[in-house]
């Protein structure tokens, strides 16, 4: 099932903590129910995005790996 994101944030090349900080800002700008596609190359982002969604309560709808890119779909829940 393909997910159509409402916004795309490319954090390729960025190191911790920038992907998390930028994701927070991008999700804040969404409406509830909308989905952000975030692309990162930092391997740490897999555990960081899981932790970030658990702590903030937003939903990690899906994540995938494409070559050296880690792709996350995050739904704003509140």
């Amino acid at each position: 099932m393909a997910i159509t994101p409402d916004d795309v944030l490319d954090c390729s090349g960025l190191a911790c903590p920038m992907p998390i900080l930028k994701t927070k800002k991008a999700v804040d700008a969404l409406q509830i129910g909308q989905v952000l596609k975030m692309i990162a190359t930092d391997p740490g982002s897999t555990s960081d995005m899981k932790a970030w969604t658990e702590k903030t309560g937003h939903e990690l709808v899906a994540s995938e790996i494409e070559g050296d890119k880690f792709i996350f779909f995050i739904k704003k829940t509140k």
Partner: protein
Amino acid sequence: MTEPTSNRIAIIAVHGTMDLAYPPLILATSALALDMEAAIFFTFFGLDIIKKGKADKLQIAPIANPSMPMPVPNIVGMLPGMTAVATGMMNGWMKNANVAKLSDLLTLAVEGGVRMIACQMTMDVMGIKKEDLIDGIEVGGAAAFLSYASQNAITLSF
């Protein structure tokens, strides 16, 4: 899941070397992203982190630092200029890894509402005035930190 949680982190920054300046700023800015609140108490050499124009000039100590990627014997590390050499190498690696500059993290922390407390006592000891520090800094003492930390904060010192 009924584990007690904390939504506040209180950090003490004691050192003014580049490697020890990053963790407080990374954790405090990340805390904001996790909908937490954060405070950093800057004391002793940690005050260097918040001096105007200083953050990106903090150095790495090659002496007594066996973890340098290219280990520097102490007898070499103590030669004039070696601190600058080690710092230059480290800055190069950080840049290659695309790590945010300390000045950028500082700005994000201040603008994001991290409570930045400069230790009055060590400012007096080291002759540092409030106007020597970047904007957005509060000057306070141990009680200011403890009062903040006592409200269910995760507390760390660097």
